[in-house]
């Protein structure tokens, strides 16, 4: 799966399932703030990623994720 497809898929479920406004989505946007996530909400993100990409994220995976770009990179790396 190439990077463009990954980004497209993530952006799609952010809008569709997390009710993020399309214009808010930008690589440098802060993931937590953009999605208005509290710590428990990460479980929804984990589930969405598993459903869309078949990989399971754990808490430590998010330690270095600040921006949406970091998030795209993390998923790309996880998919390998």
């Amino acid at each position, binding site marked *: 799966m190439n990077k463009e497809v990954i980004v497209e898929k993530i952006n799609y479920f952010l809008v569709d399932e997390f009710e993020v406004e399309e214009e808010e989505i930008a690589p440098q946007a802060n993931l937590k703030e953009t999605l208005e996530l*509290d710590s*428990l909400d990460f*479980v*929804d993100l*984990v*589930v969405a990623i598993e459903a869309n990409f078949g990989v399971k994220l754990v808490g430590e995976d998010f330690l270095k994720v600040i921006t949406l770009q970091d998030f795209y990179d993390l998923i790309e790396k996880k998919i390998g």
Partner: protein
Amino acid sequence: MEEKKAPTKYALVTGGSRGIGSAVCVQLAKDTKYHILINYNSNEAAAQKTLKEVESVGGAGEIIQFDVVNAAEVISKLDAWHVEHKDAIIEVIVNNAGITKDGLFMWMKPEDWTNVINTSLNGFFNVTNHLIQKMLVNRYGRIINMVSVSGLKGTPGQTNYSAAKGAVIAATKALAQEVAKRNITVNAVAPGFIRTDMTGDLDEKELKKLIPANRFGEAEEVAHIVSFLASEKSSYITGEVININGGIYS
């Protein structure tokens, strides 16, 4: 478009084959629509007997073997169960599995300390930790931890059991605050002297003099409060320890 099938809702009771656990299974079957998932470790015959009782009161359920102490086994058995039950949701967890290895602290063997802690405290962790993600996603759940008067006041001869149950009480309060926002309640039930196999060796005649109610409790009496906490009616109660002990301590 094909209508999505409503999930079958389950209540898992660890150590559900005997004593209070068995009474809880039957009471949940009487009071709720939950299918009862009866966990047992070694006594399959007792688990089957509980299942028959569940069915005899009009409930449905099944038995599942795993040792709550063994984290890998808990995960593999519950995962396999979920694969077989794609439309099932475990909405209620009753962490009831527990053992006692009583003795004076000065003579207590390390394994008697560890085994008791492993079953009550680590058993709570192994089962609840594995299932809570699904509860969080589902945005609803009831977690009920069976503790003991020993975990509140301490009981001589039960330093290990008191420590294990006290730790579960603290975990109950912490977890309750973590997950409350998602409509998941976490409570503990602390029985005193209840007439079961576990208290079978105790001198009831002597001990009941210490109990204001002047008798041991029945497992069914404990099961009623568990059933209430497992229901939607208890939605604003969380992080609590409910004593049920005939007035011996509160």
